[in-house]
């Protein structure tokens, strides 16, 4: 049952909220054993919320079960962003999106698994690795792997609140064959989102079908005075897609993926985005790591999260705690990120990347003068096996983001829609529109989805 029908049934009292919640909790527990989609299932909280909503359903999402990516703070619920260093950490406040969802009657069922702090594209840089709904030996993608995995597997009405920095919604949405919307940067408040790279982080949503994105998106968007980068503008309600183009460079990939993606399209132009092709990966990784390396500094065992006995100087103590609890990938990004902003290298890396970012945004902006939606496959490969991922170098892993980092760097809304299967593994098509034109990609996404 799609979300809209469920919400209608709840409103008309044709369905029991508690029964739905009990059913989805049971399902979550069973699936979690095999697929590791949750870091924590919040059974007590969900039942408590369900009981309240059952008594007096209120709000636009009354009774709707939602899962939350681990990196979004839920008051009094362990929120560790997939990291061991924040094990047992329970925030004292709700993220703005959580408060909005709860106020509208949504029911939180758990925190989904992810790469530590969002560092990865396969959800393997963590202690709880989600497994693909279509093949357990295959990755769900990342970093919002758990969100995509459960969204695909559940038989209940459900949406997952996830987050993207460089492709962390589109990538797993594609690998798990669900719809994943990453809104315009600043459209959804980041307050309460555990930071990866603040100038890139965007909270978004995944649902099984594209039309189900609407009710959730409508609740989570909007200005928040607690987030200084929050936009004070309303998204456009023009959803007419008159002219589309495929991105030339994005189709220089696996011919099977290319052909199947194109088979879903008609009446398109071809546009070239050479600057994004050449510079988006290095620009993205320099900015993301520079910011991440400062964000992670606060995790030092002194104020919250995991710690060790206080010994030696504070520098020794901090190093010991951080060495023990961060994954290898987090350490790599701290070291690289620190390097790019050090005196002597800062001009050549960090500042250059910031300038390049403006050029990349301008390249997109120019394209949107002519086109409503730009199209590419979401991922250049099919979902890989864990054994294949192990053989990839860090650089090869970073290259997998080649199609998703562009819109992420430019803060552009983008949507991955399920676009069929090759063998038993799914592919996704990514639609990108100009800032605040989410309605266009959702509308067009529904059309593509229907062709499959």
């Amino acid at each position: 049952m799609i979300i809209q029908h469920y919400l209608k049934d709840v409103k008309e009292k044709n369905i029991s909220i508690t029964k739905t919640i009990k059913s989805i909790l049971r399902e979550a527990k069973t699936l979690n054993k095999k697929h590791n989609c949750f870091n924590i299932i919040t059974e007590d909280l969900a039942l408590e919320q369900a009981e309240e909503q059952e008594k007096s359903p209120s709000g636009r999402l009354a009774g709707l079960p939602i899962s939350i990516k681990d990196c979004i703070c839920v008051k009094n619920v362990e929120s560790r962003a997939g990291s061991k260093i924040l094990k047992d950490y329970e925030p004292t406040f709700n993220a703005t999106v959580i408060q909005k969802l709860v106020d509208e009657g949504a029911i939180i069922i758990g925190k989904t698994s992810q790469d530590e702090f969002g560092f990865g594209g396969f959800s393997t840089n963590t202690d709880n690795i989600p497994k693909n709904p279509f093949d357990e030996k295959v990755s769900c993608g990342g970093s919002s792997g758990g969100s995509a995995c459960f969204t695909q597997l559940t038989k209940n009405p459900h949406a997952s609140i996830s987050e993207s920095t460089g492709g962390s919604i589109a990538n797993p949405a594609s690998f798990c064959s669900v719809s994943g919307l990453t809104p315009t940067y600043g459209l959804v408040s980041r307050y309460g989102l555990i930071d990866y790279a603040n100038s890139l982080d965007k909270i978004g949503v995944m649902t099984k079908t594209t039309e189900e994105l609407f009710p959730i998106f409508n609740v989570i968007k909007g200005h928040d005075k607690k987030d200084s980068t929050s936009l004070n503008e309303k998204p456009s309600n023009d959803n007419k897609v008159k002219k589309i183009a495929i991105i030339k460079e994005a189709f220089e990939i696996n011919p099977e993926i290319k052909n199947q993606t194109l088979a879903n399209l008609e009446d398109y132009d071809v546009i070239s985005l050479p600057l994004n092709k050449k510079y988006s990966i290095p620009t993205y990784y320099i900015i993301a790591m520079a910011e991440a390396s400062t964000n992670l500094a606060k995790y030092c065992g002194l104020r919250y999260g995991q710690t060790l006995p206080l010994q030696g100087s504070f520098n020794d103590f901090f190093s010991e705690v951080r060495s023990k609890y961060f994954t290898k990938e987090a350490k790599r990004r701290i070291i690289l990120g620190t390097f790019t902003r050090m005196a002597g290298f800062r001009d050549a890396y960090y500042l250059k990347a910031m300038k390049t970012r403006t050029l990349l945004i301008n390249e997109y902006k120019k394209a949107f003068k002519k086109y409503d939606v730009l199209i590419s496959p979401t991922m250049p490969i099919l979902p890989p096996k864990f054994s294949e991922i192990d053989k990839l170098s860090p650089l090869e892993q970073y290259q997998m983001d080649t199609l998703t980092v562009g819109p992420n760097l430019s803060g552009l809304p983008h949507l991955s829609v399920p676009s069929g299967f090759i063998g038993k593994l799914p592919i996704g098509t990514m639609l990108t529109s100009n800032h605040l034109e989410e309605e266009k990609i959702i509308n067009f996404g529904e059309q593509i989805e229907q062709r499959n």
Partner: protein
Amino acid sequence: MKIGLEIHVQLNTKSKIFCGCSTSTSTEPNTKTCEICSGAPGSKPVLNKEALHQGIKVALALNSKIAKTTFFSRKSYFYPDMTKDFQITQYEIPFASKGKLENINLRRIHLEEDPGALIHKGSTCLIDYNRAGIPLIEIVTEPDFKSPNEVRLFLRKLITILEYLEVYDRKSEATLKADANISTTGEKVEIKNITGLKEIESALDYEARLQEKTPASKQETKRWDPDNQKTQTMRTKESEDDYGYIFEPDLTKIELSKELVSLLKKEIPELSLDKMSRLESEYKLKKEDAEVLSSEKKLAEIFEKVAEKIDPELAAKWLIRDLRKILNYSKLTFKDITLEVKHVIELLDLFQNNKINDKTTKDLLIKLTQESFSPKEYVKKHHLELDSSNLEKFCEEVIKENKKAVEDYKSGNEKSINFLTGMVMRKAKGTANPKEVEKILKELIK
């Protein structure tokens, strides 16, 4: 000798620079904190505009250029008093630059957050984050000072300006801190984190004397030990500190429009130098008196109100000679006392019209700094008004009772007359004018 300063001043906004917590630190440790100033994961800063506005006013008062746009940066270093292990500060483009205060050029003024406070107790160290997030401005001077004495004079002037702008509280010494660079003929020595005007003076005096004897042979960073009044070497510098600055991505660029700047300019009150020359010409005061009165904003305000009703020269004399002395004696400032101007006027009016004597005026002024009352009623109630009707009688009695002193006076001991006057004053219980008493005594003894 060349000295340059980086001066940190706590602004006195009601709430912290990036959250709504109160800036009052005189409470239980770690009670004025929230998820934002304690750096909880997921929390985000929002700039308190009041801090920026106070900062701009200071910069304008220090004749600085205000930037058209400004933004914040992250300064990264690990230290337990830092809740995020980076400090939100300004790096590339401070909100103000190229200022000047008299002969000292100011390179830049920027805004930043104060870290928490480390409290060392024996072998343990406690951290109080109440201070974390209190707004600071950092004023960086060019190395234009030629002696510690110049620094002293400059800081006094700076503090007066800050007080006039009501962004600074003289009482809490901790709100002014400085790093100082000092060099004579040798290398540059930096003294870090000196707290309070007095300690800044002492540290520079100490280091200046040290370097005059033996100029520094290498670049050094030192700390000031206020207990032993000595500088101590922290480290010798091979390279600059590397703070890996990035733009603060949780805050946006801030436009400082001409309209905003001119609006803030209008809010700047008349500052001390202007006030001094105006007092001098408008009230025909002596230059020294005008200087003392304008050195404290509150004092100048009291003076101008009193001078509407009382002879300005007399008002200045009482306010400078007596009121200031009383406050200095009891280590109070104008902020600590509830002195109502109308009562001061009443009191000085009584004195001016010869209704009470000097001593009564002084006694009542002291009393007025402690409690609020009407001097007129008080004088009436306690019969302190000058009364010459019984004076001759009192004088005759005293002459009879103190024959020896009278003889002494007659034989040329002028001082004895003071003693006799005192005795009469005692009998008159403060209702006599001592000059008048002396006159009567002299006539009677003749």
